[in-house]
């Protein structure tokens, strides 16, 4: 794939759900992306450091355990401080617990600076198509 196809992938915070992370890695590699997979229990700083060293085009954050809002807050601002403020940020999974509609959740995370937000159960292909479009690949 020509152009910058490098993406940083990981499960944020104290979340140890490893299976979905592996599936995403395989799906994005298959689709022609160079995946830098940081695995589970990844801090915001680790995402940013890996994106800087590898000059990645996007950071893909997963969160399955309901603390996504807390874990993701401030990630965009930290990217801006670190000089990669324009990087694409995607997030998906069981992002919050409680009775909020996905529309509310999406709005919340977009306000936090995420470019795309996915509910549970979305197939990797959807995110792959979006990412190709956003990167002009």
């Amino acid at each position, binding site marked *: 794939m020509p152009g910058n196809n*490098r993406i*940083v992938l990981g499960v944020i915070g*104290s*979340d*140890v759900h490893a299976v979905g992370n592996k599936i995403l890695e395989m799906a994005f590699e298959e689709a022609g992306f*160079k995946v*830098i997979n*940081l695995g*589970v*229990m990844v801090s915001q*700083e680790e995402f940013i*450091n*890996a994106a*800087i*060293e*590898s*000059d*990645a085009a996007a950071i893909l954050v997963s969160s399955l*355990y*309901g603390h996504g809002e807390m874990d993701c807050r401030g990630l965009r601002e930290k990217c801006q401080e670190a000089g990669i403020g324009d990087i694409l940020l995607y997030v998906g999974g069981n992002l919050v617990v409680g009775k909020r509609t996905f529309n509310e959740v999406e709005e919340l995370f977009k306000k936090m600076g995420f470019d795309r937000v996915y509910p549970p159960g979305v197939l990797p292909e959807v995110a792959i198509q979006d990412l190709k479009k956003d990167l002009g690949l």
Partner: protein
Amino acid sequence: MKALLIDFGSTYTKVSLVNLVPPALIGTSRAPTTTETGLLDGLNKALEAFTPEQLDGIAVKKACSSAAGGLKIVAIGLVPELTVKAAREAALGAGARVMATYAYTLSDEELDEIKELEPDLLLLSGGTDGGDRKNILENAARIAESGLSVPVVVAGNKSAASDVKKILEKRIPHVVVTKNVMPEINVLQVEPARQAIRELYLQEITKAKGLDVIQQEVGLAMPTPLAVMKAGELLNKTSGKEVVIVDVGGATTDVHSFCDGKPRRSGIVLKGLPEPFAKRTVEGDLGMRVSLQTLLEVIEENEDIHALREYANKIKRERSLIAANEREKYFDRIFATACIREALLRHSGQLNEVFTPEGRLWIQQGKDLTEIDILIGTGGALVFADDAGSLLRAGLRLEHPLHLTPRQPQLMLDHKYILYAIGLLAEDYPETAEALIKDTLKSLGRI
């Protein structure tokens, strides 16, 4: 056939005379290092301890050196936790003294600092392979424009390496490109950079430091810490045991470990850049003579702290001072114990407790040394101590359970003080080196 092995140290020039086949140590000797009048004076003085018959038939001469400040390196990378750390590991593994490390784009002030540090070599990294190019290109341009003229080893993003070389070569006399110290995120590749540093050391840096006479006369092979490291690598390889070496010197305390250091129990998640199998750390603030003022800071809580300070001030005036009475010997033991304990704490990894919805987990950063088999003590402070075993035991006393320091290793002493000589022989005469290891390592029991 005999071999003469020499270590030009900052205070002493040490020699070991060895019979290669059958392997045997003929004798050792030492004399003060003579930096002013040329290092050969000190060597000749040390050789006076041997008879002409003993010195007859020397077929191999090899030397290592930490004189003239050792091999001084400044390591540069992009992100502190990633390429900067990888570059630092590579430099330490080459036996260097890492004077400073720098991250991101070098500022004018940092370039001035580097000039003042007078390094022998710059190790320039930054970016994974195919990753960030901008940083290493910018830093190369800034180094080229700065007026620095020290050799540079380039070990960064391979996609930028040839451009980096072109930029540097306009102003810098020796530029060597080698493989990336971190080809991918969280993958460490220090061996090619170690090798490149060593070659440059032999070809260029010894000349610049006025050591080329030594190189012609006695075959200068490597910086001293690298020789010690090679001895440890050989012992690890031949015995199959996990080894740690603690080298307590006047200016620094070095720790070498030879093990993978991975978690030993379940429920532990390993984080951060992987650690090199052969890892070396150097603590420039922990030493028995030159670094006493900074060492005192880590032993704040001693009841004799005032007397210790007085003794330290006395040593400050007279660096080569040897403890004159029982009380001063006791102070030296406190110093040595502090060096051992603090250097091991810094070398070892650490556990941190985290609570997750899945229950309690542990995050490990650094190497787990809790189950290493052998811990070897070396360096003047241990070799010439009356009670090296109790010093090591005191240094290993468990005070921080979450620090993964060695727990019950077999304690050994390099009692003939020839680990450097073993390392110098390790590549060309592994069998002799192996026999000498057995000869010098004296068991001090378990902890």
